[in-house]
């Protein structure tokens, strides 16, 4: 077996730069996603799908229950208000540079027996955020909504 002198620079030996061509997929919304995003865009509502057998609601809605594997048909409006279950204040971007101002991500619970929902918090100084804090979704104005998860700008404390 050959042993090699360690090199100091990764770019010292001959190398080639390349890309993984992964930027050009499209991802379909699916049956439940279609209804979720239409309700968000057109009515400003957040929908979940409920499993009657498990008494459990999924937000965003899914076509199936991951607990009992039933097909779910019942959609319910879970409202725009919830409580912070967990949160984190992010200080860096993907390059490791400072994010100014920092971004706050949170898991939000709309009520008992509902899966937590991942989104961002806004209008909230990081030092004021706490578990259990009541927050509500701030939506983009109707004319600006596109039927995307970012139609919710963030959740703010109330």
């Amino acid at each position: 077996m050959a042993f090699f002198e360690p090199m100091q620079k990764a770019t010292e030996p001959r190398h080639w730069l390349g890309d993984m061509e992964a930027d050009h997929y499209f991802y379909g919304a699916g049956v439940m996603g279609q209804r979720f995003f239409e309700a968000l865009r057109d009515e400003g509502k957040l929908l979940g799908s409920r499993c009657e057998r498990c008494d459990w609601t999924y937000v965003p809605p899914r076509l199936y229950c991951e607990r009992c594997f039933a097909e779910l048909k019942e959609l319910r409006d879970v409202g725009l208000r919830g409580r912070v279950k967990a949160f984190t204040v992010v200080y860096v971007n993907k390059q490791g540079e400072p994010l100014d101002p920092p971004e706050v991500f949170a898991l939000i619970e709309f009520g008992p027996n509902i899966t937590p929902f991942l989104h961002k918090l806004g209008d909230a100084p990081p030092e004021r955020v706490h578990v259990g804090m009541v927050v509500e979704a701030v939506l983009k104005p109707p004319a600006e909504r596109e039927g995307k998860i970012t139609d919710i700008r963030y959740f703010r404390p109330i």
Partner: protein
Amino acid sequence: MRDVAIVGVGCTPFRPLTPEVNWKELTFQAAVRAYEDAGIDPRRDVDSFITCAEDFWEGFSIFDEFTPDQLGAVLRPMHTVTGDGLLGLANAVMQIKTGLCDVVVVEAHSKISELLTFEHVVELAFDSVYEAPLSRERDVHPYYVAGLEMQLYLHETGTTEEQCAAVVVQDKQNALLNPLAPYGTRMSVDDVLGSPPLSDPLKRLEVAPRADGCVVLVLAAGEIAERLCEVPIYIEGIGWCSESPWIAARGAEALYAKRAAQMAYEQAGITNPLQQIDFAEVDDRFAFKLLQHVEALGLAHPGQAGKLLLDGMFSRDGELPVNPSGGCLGAGDLIEAGGLARALEVVLQLRGEAGARQLPDVETGVALSWRGVPHGTGAVAVFRRRS
């Protein structure tokens, strides 16, 4: 069913950069060492080869077609597991237990230094409709998910930031005695707590730095293992489990690891882990993960691991040493090779070949892997040196 034992191990040192070899040569180096250690010729003696890799880490699509030549596996049974190395190990165990194969080779590697957009690939693992757009908007670092999970774990268990910081101190100190580990150093809890926050409460020094490296293990059926080597290390149990993939579904407990451990323990006849296990090697890509994983293994009650760590229970001379190798924080985040790196340390310790970091009188060790942010997949393997 037949017993399965590890009869050969080979690896490269783990390092931040490995520009002098390409990824195939890196694998070749580790494979040659493993075959030498087992005393086998891969062209003659191996019935099946398994690589553990994922296209996006490698920069190839259909990466599994690129695996045979550097392992001596051309024109032989070979397949790829898209997951952590311990999942490949589980496949090897099954191939031998069923009688399909007698000798099987498992390989996993990291050449992650050649991926220039690591954080973007991690984000691409998020749900593309509901999750990724949230961090993409402001180019947020995807490890915010680890910060979120850490906050949940601390809040619900009462574990403290000091206890998490102490994990880093212990790992990096253990790594000083491991010649394979690149990130050994002496530091204090204050050094860790004072390092810049990445995603509060997660600090930068609590994130395992990435490393390149390769690990190859040779497995054989019990009767062959006894013939091939003096100290076969038996795989007494192996389990794996996946949680719901949704980031928002993750709880304070590492349920994937707990279920994987239950599966492995049942096969190994382990009913009282604290009594029956001598040491553990667990994934700790983020410091709090060591504590969460130790609890999932049943080696501490939920929320107690941090306190027990400060009491010295998991240090090299403690009652139940954890990560004598230095773990991911000291030896590096080896991506899909992480599980085999943990297994390698367990095997070296059980063989009595761990050099300056050798633990005294160890018979049973356990390895635990986790696939990393944002996933909830883990695997657990129980290894024993039979007297």
